């Protein structure tokens, strides 16, 4: 089951990495992947990587690109910005990949960006949401995931449908670029909509005991608590909030889904809501259902956990995007791929993927605009709103 699968992944990953020794370089087109496979956000990183692997398989089954098969060279950035830089350097200098996908978290991605400029290699950003990434003036960055500002704006359109209505909001965020950036973006949106902003608490990325923060949030009088973090911390936060009987309704952002709560739910009747970018429970609501279905089928065929699709699709869409760019470029070279990325129009699991210019003039990065879903989790059951 899960442990056997992780052994299998390790073996496959090792085998793939072993083959990355540049002897057979002419036979495949390499794509570098830097994701957190261990450490505090390993769950999400593993899902994204699996999604990427599935895309590679699906594409290779259809013949690959430019007559060659694609090969993913996967490096673990250990949920750590320094390792992210090391892994990117290794991929660029040693494996000589012409294009990268990564690095999951905003902090890791920001860390890698100077190296992209230094070596001139483009990277498709699949999850990170901090606004800084596309406004830093780095022309080698192309992001398919939404910024926190976009997420907040998409959410603001659903505010009217929330019942009971949101009047006062607290925040519990992981204290890195992503969490703090999301809190700032959502705060602004709420204030623009006349909603009061209450208390903000933060948590270290690897903290497991959140009772102190939750106790502080208990008596604030807010009706909603926005929580931003990865799967593990969302699970802990929701569970512990239920234990302490926090009155606020919980809404999580960032696209992660606390799936451990499906098997060990919180207290009865306790519900939490989650902003996702893909809802695998109702794939027919995707913009391109046939693409979503191809992804879903490949995923379930491998017996991965269903809720993992909420993040796995990011890796999938990223690889689809990269391969399309390689096809348009006609060759697997960094500068050509970068130019081709501007011309990409892909039907992804999340919807249309195309890049618009964002950032200081002359050095823009590419940004895509995706769809947002709200999903409710109650007593171990999921409902897509």
């Amino acid at each position, binding site marked *: *089951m*899960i*442990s056997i699968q*992780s*052994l299998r*992944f*390790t073996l496959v990953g090792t085998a793939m990495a072993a083959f990355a020794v540049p002897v057979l370089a002419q036979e495949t087109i390499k794509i570098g992947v830097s994701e957190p*496979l*261990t*450490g505090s956000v*390993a*769950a999400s990183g*593993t899902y994204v990587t699996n999604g990427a692997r599935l895309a590679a398989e699906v594409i290779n089954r259809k013949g690959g690109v430019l007559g060659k098969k694609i090969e993913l060279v996967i490096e673990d950035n250990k949920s750590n910005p320094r390792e992210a830089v090391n892994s990117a350097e290794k991929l660029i200098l040693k494996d000589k990949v012409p294009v990268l996908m990564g690095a999951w978290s905003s902090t890791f991605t920001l860390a890698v960006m100077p190296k992209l400029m230094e070596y001139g290699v483009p990277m498709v950003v699949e999850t990170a949401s901090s606004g800084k990434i596309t406004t830093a003036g780095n022309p080698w960055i192309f992001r398919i995931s939404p910024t926190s500002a976009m997420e907040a704006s998409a959410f603001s359109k659903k505010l009217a449908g929330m019942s009971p209505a949101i009047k006062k909001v607290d925040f519990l965020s992981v*204290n890195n670029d992503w969490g703090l950036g999301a809190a700032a973006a959502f705060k602004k949106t709420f204030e623009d909509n006349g909603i009061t902003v209450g208390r903000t*608490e*933060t*948590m*270290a990325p690897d*903290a*497991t*005991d959140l*009772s*102190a*923060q939750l*106790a*502080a949030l*208990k*008596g604030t009088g807010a009706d909603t608590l926005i929580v931003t973090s990865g799967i*593990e911390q969302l*699970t*802990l936060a929701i*569970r512990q909030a*239920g*234990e*302490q*009987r926090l009155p606020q309704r919980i809404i999580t952002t960032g696209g992660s889904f606390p799936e*451990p709560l499906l*098997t*060990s*739910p*919180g*207290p*009865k009747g*306790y519900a939490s809501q989650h902003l996702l970018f893909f809802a695998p429970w109702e794939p027919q609501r995707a913009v391109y259902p046939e693409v979503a279905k191809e992804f879903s089928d490949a995923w379930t065929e491998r017996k991965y956990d269903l809720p993992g699709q909420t993040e796995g699709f990011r890796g999938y869409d990223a690889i689809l995007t990269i391969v399309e760019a390689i096809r348009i470029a006609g060759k697997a070279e960094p500068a050509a791929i970068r130019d081709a990325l501007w011309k990409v129009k892909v039907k992804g699991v999340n919807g249309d993927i195309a890049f618009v210019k964002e950032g200081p003039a002359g050095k823009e990065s590419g940004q895509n605009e995706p769809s947002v879903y709200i999903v409710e989790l109650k007593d171990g059951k999921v409902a897509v709103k």
Partner: protein
Amino acid sequence: MDQFLQHLVNGLVTGSTYALLGIGLTLIFGIMKVVNMAHGELYTLGAYAAYGFVALLGVNYFAAIFLSALFGLAVGAVIEYLLLRRRNLAAMDEVMLIMIGVMIVLQNAELLVWGGVAKAVPSPFSQEPIVMGGVSVSPTRVFVLGTAVVLLVSFYMLIEKSRLGLAMRATFQDKDAAKIVGVNVSRIYTLTFALGSCLAAVAGALLAPVFVVSPTMGDLASLKAFAIVILGGLGNLLGATLGGFALALIEEFGAGYISTAYRDAIGFLVILVVMVARPQGLFTKKERVG
């Protein structure tokens, strides 16, 4: 102030497991003078054992705790027998480094087998918190507190009232004299290490459904266990128990009233302060340590 009771309850629950961790280490540290850097790994092992039994083998949670305890006992005995038995334990730094080696091997073995993604252990208790006044606590945590207290008391009985406990205390006081009166010191050492590891494993199994199980959870546990042992005084069982509760309460109130961020740092600050002010621990008589 309404949160005071809540913090108190939270602190007591955590404190009971800290006490288990601390007692296990103070035994090993006090009797065998082994700086057991792998103590946290036994804690992790207990948690993963519980996960394995409950989630993969479908064993009842309470049985899983018992099995994890046995597992911890066995692993502890094996480590002691293989690596420590024939060594000159007086070479403390070498022994400590061996234990570091054990820690590395165990932690990476767990990473290899279970992967880096944290695991959740389903709790057999309902998730409805028990609410009394302004305080709400989950049944799981109440169970943890209860079990830990029972274990602490039984352990105390073992040490103070039984023949085995007498032999252990004798060995602690003066190893050679104990040998002279017929205590099999080698066997006591094995048993001590095994018991200490067993307690750590139980602490891990108890806390597994409260938090999540990950391969690196032992790092912090190890370091906090050392903090507790320092607080309570080396080899002082009562001191370790009180030290465990003390550390948990300091952490809880510190996090609640001063700063949530520095929660885990408090333990280490405590160590530094105690070392400067009263190196032999808060609960021991004065003795030379430097």
